């Protein structure tokens, strides 16, 4: 009796687990469709929209592409193979952004390279500036220390600020 109860309990747990997996799977599918559908463009040429945002009823491309995406996700293909399928069928312009492989990587790298170069230029300017400031004589009146000058500046600002 206890054995039967245990089997029933195991079955129940397994059923709940399987159900949960199915539900999670269903959730994952819609999330994946949402994500992949926003990594691709509708290729109709008229809307210039993400695949899932094309709102042309009867659009010759987006409806077909959406159903292809749904069936590809349902069949368990990986994201990369789904994207590859769409590239082969509709061309590289189907992707909403450059990939991070091959020459496409250059698109992503150059702005950050420009950022780093900019930082480099500013760091260089800092070093030059420090050297110049260290070499230059104090611009304040003789006998006035740097701290005093700062205090005078602060006082002047405080008293004249409107």
């Amino acid at each position, binding site marked *: 009796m206890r054995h039967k109860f245990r089997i029933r309990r195991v079955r129940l747990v397994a059923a709940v687990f399987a159900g949960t997996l199915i539900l999670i799977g269903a959730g994952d599918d819609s999330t994946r469709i949402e994500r992949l559908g926003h990594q691709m463009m509708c290729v109709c*040429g008229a809307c210039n929209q993400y695949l899932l945002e094309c709102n042309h009823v009867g659009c010759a491309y987006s409806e077909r592409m959406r159903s292809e995406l749904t069936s590809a996700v349902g069949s368990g293909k990986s994201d990369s193979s789904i994207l590859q399928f769409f590239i082969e069928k509709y061309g590289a312009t189907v992707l909403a952004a450059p990939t991070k492989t091959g*020459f496409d990587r250059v*698109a992503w790298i150059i702005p950050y390279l420009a950022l780093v170069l900019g930082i480099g230029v500013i760091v260089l300017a800092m070093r030059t500036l420090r050297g110049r400031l260290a070499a230059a004589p104090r611009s304040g009146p003789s006998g006035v220390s740097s701290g005093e000058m700062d205090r005078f500046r*602060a006082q002047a*600002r405080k008293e004249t600020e409107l």
Partner: protein
Amino acid sequence: MSELGSFVLLLALALSGYSFVAGFVALVRRQLGSEQLSETARRAGIASFVAVLIAAVILVAAAFTNDFSIAYIFHHSNRDLPLPYKFAVLWSGQEGSLLFWSLLLSGYGMVLRLRHKTDQRLFAHASVVIAAVQVFFLLLLNFAARPFAIMQGQLPTDGSGLNPLLQYPEMVIHPPMLYLGYVGFTVPFAFALGALAMKYPGDKWIHITRRWTMVTWGFLTLGIPLGAHWAYYVLGWGGYWGWDPVENASLMPWLTGTAFLHSVMMQEKRGMLKTWNMWLIFTTFMLSIFGTFLTRSGVVNSVHAFAQSSIGDWFVAFLSIIFIVCIYFYWKNREHLKSEHKLESLVSRESSFLFNNWLFLLICFTVLWGTLFPVLSEWVQGHKITVGPPFFNGVAVPFALILLLLTAVGPLLAWRKTSLESLKRNFLWPALGALAIGIFLIATPPTWGSVFGMRPWQDSAYFYSLMAAMLGALVVFTVASEFIRGGRVISGHTGRGLVASMVQLGHRNTRRYGGYVVHVGIALIFIGVLGTPLNQSAEKEMGFGDKLAVGPYTLVCQSYTQEDHPNYSTELAIMQVFKNGKQIDTLYPESRFYASTQQPQHIPTVRSSLKEDLYVVYEGQNPDTGRPIIKAHLNPLVSWIWIGVLVMIFGTVLALVPNAAPVRAAVTERAGAKVSVQAAPVGAGD
């Protein structure tokens, strides 16, 4: 009519050509009579405006009188087109919009030439530069893109009609605003090139052009969001900015123009960055021309682009000439642009402007790079690729957030040098306030609304949203603290209330405090944009009584119907909106079909609040069931974008208002006698 139009355009070309050649000769050969020659050039430039104005009036009149013998009118108008949109015909096609460009340019040129007594020699130089640009556009209008070309064969009884996308009230004002901005940058460019060419002593030309630049920048600042607003309310995809190449083309000169408005202060106050400023304004003008080239050459794919044509080559040639001329004069007179002062401290207003300029240019470069990368890809790989929103959002948005941080910190820094103690004192409370906002947005339950209960560790988009909220709040708090601090000082001197003192403060230094108001507008726009990753949407085919839920709203389809109008037929749905079980509104999304162009157009209906927009689109009918397909978007915080734009425009107008007279306050000397003192705003500078 077309003959008269063609004639006045040819006359305008001759007058502009004379204005350029005679003005140039008068400047180069400074002999007896050169002043009279220069005066004739000035008058010819003014007369060219009259000629171009007549041409534009003729084209608009042809639209109003349905003169379909003119090919342009046939292609862009029809008999049933409502009268206000007949005006829009002027800029709805390639030839007309070039005529509009030329009209605005000659208008700016006329104002400049009428004000020549301000500085005759500098204005004469600027007038020659403007005449040269005018000659280019009139050459296009006379030989490459003729607005008065006539129809061949039998005359049509009706026109093809205006593009349905343009039949919206905003389209009557968006392009003129944008063009006023684009074209207006010719004026500071002309002054800059003129000042460089003549080695203009001092920086007076900067003062002369400041208002021109501000006004131009203001038009562009209004024009770009008007386009975004139009896209939001007309295109029906639920968004307002798609990083389309033509949108990007309008953003680039705005970015460099904004950088110029900041860095030019360094030249005015400290005599620094002269070369940089010169090239910034050169670049801004070239980007304006480049944007016009992008929309007309077909070099990149865009939903906005005009028909592909050969005039792209003209623009390439013109851009090349501009670049060569700029390089020539820079190289020839580069000694004239040497800085008068060096940077003294990294913690100073000057260094913040340097960082700010670097970021503006970096964002501009990123936008340009992303826009042109498909062309580069085709050249290198043999095939085009798409560079869409994921690229721009992933690269330009982080840079923009750094810029927003600088917008908050910059105004707290003084010219020359700021002590860290003073920075800490001024920055502490705004920073704590921004931090509190961030903690609040994370700690609040998501059930309060889409912007609450943020989880920045789950998705980078949420992280950016949170950062935009916090940095936006930081900007608002720092500006508020600046106003309060200054207001208190004035209040202490004059005995007025704090609010009245803050108003007086703004009036005392309109440029500085107008700029701060613009910063607040920018912060509000960022706060509005931060809602984008939190958008939700739902779509459903709906019969009578069917329900569609999105966020806290439930839409119930009450009815759907069809109507016929002279210019279009429409299908519309009547949707009741419920929130928490209570009906709060009725919306009427529609889909129009324009018979003349055989094009459908979805007109969304939007229920806006400060918290969110409920955006409902009638996407069409299912051909099998005949029932409407409705898509509902829930877009948080979008209204803040439009509010932010209005605040920016208010700040720009405030910055253009002349300063009020200095405050005079009675203060008591140590001896006890009262004396009158004049208080001037120095503080962190303006």
